[in-house]
């Protein structure tokens, strides 16, 4: 015992070595750069090359973009300003005057300027209507009633006209529900749903026209009507995008259920529709809207070009949405369906309470990327002659004042689209994180 300890004493350090700083190359900015940028000689070369590329691009864009031409009112004036700034020689820079002069047009198209408050109000209210859906944990749930009413307010604000038209469309739903309740007291589920649908259709197609005319004659409340051909700019893009997106979600759910249904005929009809729409480019559907849809309707019908485009874009979005939701349904474990069955829920109860909440949650990334795709695809309407931002650029560039303007317009439009689409994709990531309740 005594001997083992004694001869080790001399080799024992009795004070701690003071803690040394980590080497310079592994902490702080230098350490970070060493680890992430210059870890090997190859990485170092790549980093330097990337820096050179970034510098080259910025050196091209930044001096061009910082240009004192905001107040100019024509391209030649821009050139004069740039030449003056450059000491007499012809300068190189952006001509931002075109954005200042035309940004109202790029936003609203030819919408009458004293009525611009209406689209603005419609889009602000859109935010209010979407809030309880998008941020359900921060907004009172009562707002959902407003969300339900919003689809009738939105077209009324944009197109104007008598207030009784949207009210009568809304009343159709009430009539249908009433018929459903009355029939369900005496007959079964299927029959009462059928009765509700028929009653609503009868109201919309036959009765509502007379009712609206009568009421509009008695109590003329309404907004100044605006023609569809005056719609344009980002207002048009957002209108088409929002309507197509909002309508395609419920229709897409139905179509996805149809495609997964056991009913053979329903399934084949759904598959046929989805594959047909997904197999053709959107531009051919827009050709249908611009040239054929009036031929398909009863003789003498001539309905609005924007309405026709809305119908075709909605059909297009619906097919894609249906496939996304079908993916979500397929990803759900079979036990969920069987569990719902064993609880004695019927088909619609099971869908509403068990299947859809989970399936929609799984499909959120796909749904949002469909939304983004549809919103981007609204630019295609410029090909059939609607005045979306891209369609407006042709008119602006044909103006003698701005003949020769290219980058400023395209850059501005691209930037606006980028802001919209990028924020949508970030929102989907936020939603994914928030809804990730951990099923794994």
């Amino acid at each position, binding site marked *: 015992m005594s001997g083992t300890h004694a001869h080790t004493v001399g080799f024992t350090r009795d004070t701690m070595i003071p803690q040394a700083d980590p080497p310079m190359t592994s902490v702080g900015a230098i350490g970070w750069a060493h680890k*992430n*940028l210059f*870890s090997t000689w190859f*990485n170092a070369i*790549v*980093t330097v090359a*990337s*820096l050179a*590329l*970034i510098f080259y691009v910025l050196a091209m864009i930044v001096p061009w973009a910082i240009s004192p031409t905001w107040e100019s009112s024509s391209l030649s004036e821009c050139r004069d300003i740039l030449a003056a700034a450059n000491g007499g020689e012809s300068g190189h820079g952006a001509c931002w005057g075109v954005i200042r002069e035309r940004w109202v047009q790029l936003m609203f198209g030819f919408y009458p300027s004293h009525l611009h408050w209406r689209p603005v109000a419609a889009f602000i209210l859109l935010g209010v209507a979407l809030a309880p859906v998008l941020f359900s944990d921060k907004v009172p749930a009562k707002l959902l009633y407003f969300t339900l009413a919003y689809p009738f307010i939105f077209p009324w604000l944009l197109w104007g006209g008598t207030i009784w038209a949207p009210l009568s469309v809304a009343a159709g739903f009430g009539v249908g529900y009433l018929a459903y309740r009355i029939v369900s007291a005496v007959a*079964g589920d*299927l*029959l009462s749903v*059928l009765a509700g649908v028929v009653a609503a259709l009868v109201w919309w197609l036959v009765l509502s026209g007379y009712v609206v005319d009568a009421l509009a004659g008695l109590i003329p409340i309404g907004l100044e009507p605006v023609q569809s051909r005056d719609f344009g700019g980002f207002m048009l893009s957002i209108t088409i995008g929002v309507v197509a997106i909002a309508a395609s979600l419920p229709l897409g759910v139905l179509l996805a259920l149809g495609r997964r249904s*056991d*009913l*053979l*005929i*329903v399934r084949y*009809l759904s598959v046929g529709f989805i*594959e*047909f729409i*997904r*197999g*053709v*480019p*959107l*531009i*051919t559907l827009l*050709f*249908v809207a611009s*040239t*054929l849809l*009036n*031929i*398909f*309707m*009863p*003789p003498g019908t001539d309905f609005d070009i924007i309405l026709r485009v809305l119908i075709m874009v909605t059909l297009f979005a619906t097919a894609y949405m249906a496939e996304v939701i079908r993916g979500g349904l397929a990803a759900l474990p079979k036990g969920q369906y069987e569990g719902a069955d064993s609880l004695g829920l019927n088909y619609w109860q099971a869908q509403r309470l068990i299947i859809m909440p989970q399936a929609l949650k799984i499909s959120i990334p796909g749904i949002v990327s469909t939304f*983004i795709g549809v919103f*981007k*695809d609204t*630019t*295609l309407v*410029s*090909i059939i002659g609607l005045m979306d931002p*891209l369609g407006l650029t042709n008119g602006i560039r044909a103006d003698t004042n701005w003949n020769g303007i*290219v*980058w400023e317009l*395209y850059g501005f*439009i*691209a930037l606006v*689209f*980028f802001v919209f*689409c*990028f924020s949508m*994709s970030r929102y989907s990531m936020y939603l994914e994180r928030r809804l990730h309740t951990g099923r794994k």
Partner: protein
Amino acid sequence: MTSLTDPQKDRFRLSMLLYDTRYRSATIQIIALIFFMLVAAWLISNTAQNLAALGKPIDLGFLTEPASYDINQRLLDYDSRDSHLRASFIGLLNTLVVAVLGCATATVIGVIVGVLRLSPNWLVGRLMTVYVESFRNVPVLLWIVFFMAILIETLPAPSAFRGDDPAAHMLLGDSVAITNRGVYIPEPLFSNSLGDIHLFGASPLRFDVSLDLIAILAVLGLGLWASAWIRRRADGIQEATGARPTTWYLRLGVVSVPLAVLLLMLGFHLGMPELKGFNFRGGTHMRNSLIALWLALSLYTAAFIAEIVRAGILAISSGQTEAAAALGLRPRRIMSLVILPQALRVIVPPLISQYLNLTKNSSLAIAVGYMDITGTLGGITMNQTGRELECVLMLMMIYLIISLSISAVMNWYNESVKLRER
């Protein structure tokens, strides 16, 4: 004899069509079918009435009338006296050209960007993210017109190549000229050409196939087959004896020597573009519209492909790599035997649907005046003849056939790589 406890005979009542689950689904389906047929009949009768009122019954006769418009970018012979059908056929080939070019370029760029996004180099990863996000979040139509504007506005005019001290120079030893009227590249020519086969005679679908090209492809294919045979033989020898014979010069030889001999016999040379007068002559002229469409579609689709590739690589857990390494596989074999087969199963289906998207997006060619099937059949032909119904329906059918063939290939592939679960 019957007793009171016998169940009542189930007799069919009309209400069972609704309440008995055995009949209910049939009822719903028949209602759906009747509804669908009613809607279809309504649409068709409307169409028939409207067409009768307009005085243009459905008739495909317009397809044989002379098109009387020019198509400047084309693979086959065509002039404005040819029929509308011929014009549409040229347009269809143009669609396929830009789709194939675009898919190939997009795949290459997409794979590189997707891998680089996972790079340990922070700066490179960020740069690639910027690329992907900026292309994904801006409409493809905007990119197409934007690239068209870049080509027209920033490239030198052909006149800039003239003079003793020209402002612009041709690239690659005076063989490629990049101008604001398009790109001129050398074209392969054969002085002892074998000629062409004329398929389909003088019909609108006539199709000239160069025999030179067929001969070159045949020789190349034979060479590759011989090379693969030599490799298999070397594999056999290695398995039997343990020593692998050196074969690379043989394999190189069987591919390149016959090809070189054939090219020499055919008198292969390149026809260089030359500046004559106001423009370049000779060589192959790729117009701005083709280049802009090709670049925009491939860069746009590449951003999506990059995300697919990245997701595919991330989907393979690192345990797979480690387990393969623990088995003693070398890095290259880990990649080819373990990672790639699994990653491809994740990557290929969405990749093919991106090819499908690119093909469909090529219809936006009409915005820059590239004469694809939409520009010919759905554009000028439709406007000249006023046959909207026939043109649009044919256009949809053609795209549908292209899409369905691509998705048939996808389904076949999916089936062949599906995990066989037991």
